[in-house]
């Protein structure tokens, strides 16, 4: 016993000491190539990464939670400004985008199913469709952002209160909602509404862009058969992420576009 320890684990001492181990080879039993060395079984590995993903989504909830809190407080304080602001959003495009995203969640779910049942072509097709639908969402969002720019509704360096202090100056919106002019003091809070609009949809769009990037990587790997040979955790976890981003949009759509629109 060269490095004879003062206190070892009694009869099991060889168990804890690498230099004395006769059974070190037993560590390398047969297992699937994707099983990482520090896990005992593929079930433990799958459980662990899915739990980690749910925790990560929890941090995302807290991240967006800060924005939703800001929305909640300011909406209560400046209700008329928020109503007038929401009239300026394009419900048609918003609804289209909601449908696009729900469809993409469906194709993503199909992708997870294809991975679990070992359908390589089906997986590549589903991921590609999700990829395209994601891009379509961003395209429509760009159209909407462009509309805001043209109407001078970008807070900070490109903002004008005229849509709210003189609603008649915007005939299309006025014809639909007959908004009364807001007092200047309340009208300036519409800039806050659009600040939140851009911060919230912008953060959401950033998550979409990251998701689309990962999707591109996954399509590339799925073509080589990476996810259809038993190790589906990555696809499943990405699916969770994609559905989460989808759910955030559904809340954004309801809060920014829909509520109190007609009263």
């Amino acid at each position, binding site marked *: 016993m060269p490095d004879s320890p*003062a206190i070892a684990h009694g009869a099991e001492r060889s168990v*804890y000491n690498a230099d004395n181990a006769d059974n070190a080879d037993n560590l390398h039993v047969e297992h699937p190539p994707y099983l990482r060395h520090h896990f005992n079984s593929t079930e433990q590995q799958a459980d662990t990464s899915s739990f980690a993903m749910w925790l990560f989504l929890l941090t995302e909830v*807290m*991240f967006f939670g800060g924005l939703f809190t*800001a929305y909640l407080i*300011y909406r209560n304080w400046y209700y008329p400004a928020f109503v007038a602001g929401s009239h300026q959003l394009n419900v048609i495009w918003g609804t289209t985008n909601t449908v696009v995203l729900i469809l993409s969640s469906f194709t993503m779910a199909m992708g997870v199913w294809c991975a679990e049942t070992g359908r390589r072509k089906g997986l590549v097709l589903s991921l590609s469709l999700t990829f395209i639908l994601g891009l379509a969402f961003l395209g429509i969002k760009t159209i909407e952002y462009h509309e805001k720019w043209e109407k001078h509704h970008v807070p900070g360096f490109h903002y004008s209160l005229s849509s709210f202090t003189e609603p008649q100056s915007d005939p299309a919106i006025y014809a639909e909602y007959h908004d009364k002019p807001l007092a200047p003091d309340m009208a300036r809070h519409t800039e806050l509404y659009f*600040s*939140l609009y851009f911060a919230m949809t912008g953060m959401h769009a950033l998550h979409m862009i990251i998701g689309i990037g990962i999707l591109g990587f996954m399509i590339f790997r799925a073509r080589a058969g990476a996810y259809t040979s038993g190790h589906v955790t990555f696809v499943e976890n990405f699916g969770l992420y994609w559905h989460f981003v989808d759910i955030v949009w559904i809340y954004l759509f309801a809060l920014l576009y829909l509520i109190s629109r007609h009263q």
Partner: protein
Amino acid sequence: MSTNTIVSLPDQSTARIPKDNFITRENGLLSWLLTGDHKRIAILYLISITFFFFIGGALAGLIRLELLTPQADLMATDTYNKVFTMHGVIMIFFFLVPSVPATLGNFLIPMMIGAKDLALPKINLLSWYLYMAGGILAIYTMASGGVDTGWTFTTPLSTHYVNTNVLTTGLAVFVAGFSSIFTGLNFIVTIHKMRAPGMTWFRLPLFVWAHYAASILMVLGTPVLAIAIVLVALERTIGIGIFDPAKGGDPLLFQHLFWFYSHPAVYIMILPGMGVISEVISTFSRKRVFGYTAVAFSSVAIAVFGFFVWAHHMFIMGISNYAVLVFSLLTMLVAVPSAIKIFNWAFTLYKGSITFETPMLYAFGFMGLFTIGGMTGVFLGASGTDIHLTETYFIVAHFHFVMVGGMLMAFLSGIHFWWPKITGRMYPEKLSQLAALVTFIGFNLTFFPQFILGVLGMPRRYASYPPEFQILNVFSTAGATILGVGYMLPVLYLLWSLKYGEIAGNNPWQATGLEWQTQSPPITENFVVMPVMDHEAYDYEWLESQNQAQQQEEVPSAG
């Protein structure tokens, strides 16, 4: 003191460091930079946070030097603002938050629960790279002119009125925040999913419980800081108005979002330190921690209460009187689980076989200084006294008692305690006892006068002050110098011990944790065969029976 010791080292003439361990398994810089081994990542972290600690410490030295005289004579007042801002940013985000969790926690949690590694080794490595990226950004900020908002990024100062590097500092904190999120997430997943057979929740060492509670705070709190920083950055760059009164926003909302993280962050910093103290107190009193379950749950209680006290940072910022009332009450509640810990450690000492090795000296330092730091927190939690004391040196002294007196003492205690496990060698005992003493004296001399200065009304964050405050400031600066010596000593003798320290053997302290039942330094897989936990935590009778069984086994082989 010296005759009474539990240290049991192997025979130095024959002992050697095991040839195969996590340090020798692979060689070369790349084997470190691309490692997935939690122990190697812990060492990467240890080197990095020590580096940032000394940058932050040097800035603290500059602050104290400036305050030696009543006039602002060492540096311009703008420079002074930048120095204390960077001192705060670096010490909080690049030292205190990752200090114990990312080094000792990273190293020990898998070993304490009987696992081969953290659940997500790549995420663990990613977290170190994010930390370094954030750290480099922070250094870039300093090199390119610094930032002078204070570490709190208070709006509208940070969004409208300063033209220093708010964006790069914000980005540095944002990136380092993700490093912290990933560390916390990794710990929670590991503690849930990777425990060895027989390692039930109530057999976990209290170190693990403390880290679990701190991880909850990291995972739930840090994203809120992230979004607050994003909004400040958007306001500064493109001019959205969420915190801007001119556009209808409210700067108070920033304070809410910021302190929703930054108050729990003080528990992120202190809870892992409390975990260290539980281990050390038990080992050097040879007793199971008194009221194990209460101490375990008190960690979780601190984490939960910690989320509902943030507005006590805002008593003078115009929140409503009712909010002050509620948050004041909730703040007092945090004292309950903190007191449970202190009392239970005291009862653990009662009738224990106490010895005074260095980790224990630091632990005593922690108990005393944290108690003072915590009690003065009650003054600040009560709104009446808070209005007088906030933004004075009283508050500076208060949080330095908790953070430096508490957390840094716990960190040093833990580093000394597990140094033999990490390196396989002992630190020099006499010298380190001296360092612990020097640190304690230097600390009290530095920060105790600041309580008095605060009560007398000296405001924080000014480079100059009325001449009648000078004598106390001279004490404080003198103390800081002694404190600096106290921190330099461990660096020197710990580096020395890497080559010349005595061989420690598996379990020099005769401690009970699983990490002590494997070789020092451990092999990459920690244990050759997965351990099975068949006894409670801190079961010294179990350890005794193991020793006897081993002695009986050795007698025939010797003959």
